[in-house]
């Protein structure tokens, strides 16, 4: 059975170039970058080189890149680090209801510390309104954190508009963007969009797990949340994850080489996917619509069906997707994102997320459509009476 991996928003397979780079690093450059001898210097060079590669992809400078253990730590560092630093200026923050848990939970922690946080709603397409943000801004607003592309629906947030609104403020709050899902798929250039902090992840762009980065615009100050040997100018203590950093650098380089064509290629596949589903399964609902969504994520619902059952039935055919609600006989756990889109329960329960990457082929999509259609019809015979 040929396997078709359509869960690239969860994680992506590593490309050979990355595996080679990491292997080479593990074998040859095991030094600690803090060491004074030449092995340390070689390891340090690896960091510099990777920072350059990552920064080039977002047209920033290498000094503006801080490597973290992943997207979660990047988001935590950005949010907590800003809040702690600006506490005396104010304790008000703005975000949306559809952020990743590593953002929402960081804010919920801040709330327990006395901060005030506004969670803005989104419309049926899963998009926050810049007007809402403008209306929420206050004298003591210190941080606005908005994701670029939502991980469940692929909806794209109006980062540019929000950036200009913030730029016009007298007491300009810090602007953080969680770009983990869009990095490498859609161009996002922080210096042109008024972004101060931006979170990135390695394993979503065919790099290894356990590595991510935070872009920190020159001049923006945050407090560290990890303390110790003062690596990275005291911003993130702990011996650097050199193999991970090398891997993320290699992945960024691989992605950069394909960055012009990537959005077009992915959009083409997604269009093929959406049309194929609509043709074979007319009852399917595309969550969040198709306009203004990222080219690699498609959230689709088959109302009345169980998304998790569909997921497992597809798994049996060698196809891997993900779901918007976990199935359970006692309690139902609905995705907070799909709930924020105001979808009814049966639409949420019946939803799956199909996500692709540059490695996905047209042939895979072509074989997937009939498998999905057959599976949905087969599973559809058995729904709770």
């Amino acid at each position, binding site marked *: 059975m040929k396997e078709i991996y359509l869960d690239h928003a969860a994680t992506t397979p590593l490309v050979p170039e990355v595996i080679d780079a990491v292997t080479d690093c593990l074998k040859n450059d095991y030094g600690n970058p803090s060491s004074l001898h030449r092995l340390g210097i070689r390891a340090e060079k690896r960091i510099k080189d990777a920072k350059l590669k990552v920064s080039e992809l977002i047209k920033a400078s290498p000094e503006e890149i801080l490597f973290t253990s992943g997207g979660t730590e990047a988001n935590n560092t950005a949010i907590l680090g800003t809040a702690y630093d600006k506490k005396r200026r104010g304790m008000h923050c703005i975000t949306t209801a559809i952020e990743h848990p590593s953002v929402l939970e960081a804010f919920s922690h801040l709330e327990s510390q006395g901060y005030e946080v506004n969670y803005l709603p989104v419309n049926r397409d899963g998009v926050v309104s810049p007007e809402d943000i403008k209306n929420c801004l206050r004298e003591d607003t210190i941080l606005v954190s908005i994701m670029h592309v939502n991980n469940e629906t692929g909806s794209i947030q109006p980062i540019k508009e929000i950036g200009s609104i913030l730029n016009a403020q007298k007491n300009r709050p810090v602007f953080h963007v969680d770009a983990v899902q869009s990095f490498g798929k859609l161009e996002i250039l922080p210096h042109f969009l008024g972004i101060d902090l931006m979170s990135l992840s390695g394993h979503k762009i065919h790099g290894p797990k356990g590595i991510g980065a935070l872009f920190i615009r020159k001049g923006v100050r945050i407090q560290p949340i990890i303390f110790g040997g003062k690596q990275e100018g005291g911003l993130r203590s702990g011996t650097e994850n050199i193999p991970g950093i090398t891997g993320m650098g290699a992945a960024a380089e691989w992605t950069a080489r394909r960055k012009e064509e990537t959005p077009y290629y992915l959009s083409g596949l997604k269009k093929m996917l959406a049309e194929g589903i609509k043709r074979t399964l007319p009852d399917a609902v595309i969550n969040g619509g198709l306009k203004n969504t990222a080219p690699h994520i498609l959230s689709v619902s088959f109302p009345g069906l*169980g998304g*998790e*059952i*569909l*997921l*497992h*039935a597809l*798994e*049996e055919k060698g196809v891997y997707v993900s779901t918007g609600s*976990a*199935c*359970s*006989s*006692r309690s139902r756990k609905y995705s907070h994102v799909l709930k924020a889109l105001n979808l009814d329960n049966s639409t949420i329960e019946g939803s799956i997320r199909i996500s692709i990457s540059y490695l996905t082929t047209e042939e895979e999509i072509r074989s997937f459509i009939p498998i999905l259609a057959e599976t949905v019809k087969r*599973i559809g*015979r*058995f*729904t*709770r*009476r």
Partner: protein
Amino acid sequence: MEKVILIRYGEIFLKGRNRSYFEKVLLNNCRKALREIPDVNIIRAQGRFFAENYTDEDAVIDALTRVFGLVSISPALKIDGDFEEIAAVSKQMMGEYLDEQAKEQMTFKVESRRADKRFPMDSMTISRELGARLLKAFPQLKVDVHNPDVIFNVEVREHTYLYYKMIPCAGGMPVGSNGKAALLLSGGIDSPVAGWMIAKRGVALTAVHFHSFPYTSDRSKEKVIELARILTRYTGSIRLHVVPFTKIQQELYERCPDEELTILMRRYMMKIAERIAVKEGAAALVTGESIGQVASQTIESLAVTNDAVDMPVFRPLIGFDKIDIMETAEAIGTYETSILPYEDCCTVFTPRHPVTRPKLERILRSEKLIDGETLIQEALDNVEVITL
């Protein structure tokens, strides 16, 4: 001087002429329980076992407390020598114990047994003399023969054993001494506890699990494997039979009355489990049912389920409240795994209004609406056996 663990067993003494058989099974089970602990040696002597030659005492104790058939164990010091030697070592042990307890005052008594009559002092004299020595050595000690804080034991046999700790074990009878049964193991809280209780009566287990992919995921199967693995710490090896059950559920769904789906499903599960039991040399089925817990566990439903098989069905939890079952599950270490949130999506096949007072004749009629024999055979042909 050597550290040993004194191992006591009780109930199997009652078994008259079978005693040596039970002892052999029990000794073998102890050895299996200690299989992963390096170098440890177990010997049998005078109605006791002794564990010797180990370094990790806690690991040995932990493993032995799970062996059914053992009553209690005591870590002891084994010495050879006269009363002076006994007194010197006893003082040292008592000193360590008192330091550990760090209390201002403690009561104690000495209990002695003399199996080796060549030893010049009788047990009364040993107790009296040793008690006096300890009293003199530790001013914080007082004698209390009725309700002491600590009992210091001296057993004079071929060697002399000194100990003051008595760790209770699981009790019951040695697994394998009372035949074999097939446990219907779900991913829930009840069935592992039911299996544990029956195993405690000396019954070896084989396990049967019904897997309804894609309605239950491979994670829920992993969870059942983990539960069976935890049970093996008490029961020794278990063969887990994973039965593909989706097709039977789908057929029932399409052909049978909705409100009867659960009870029909239970009957098919029992039938399949019985066939596996026969093949595995098991003479009974074990389920985690308890009266009234859910619709399929009313007396009427249990009667209809029971009718599906000829074998005796043991339901050790039948009179237990859920809370008691949960407590036992926690004590035996299955609870944390049972509540893992990989629950099944079988609600598709769960009627909204299940029958609570099913009539056997009606159920038998509904049961014939699907080609049961063929489906059972197909399921049996595709059983996956996992040896744990």
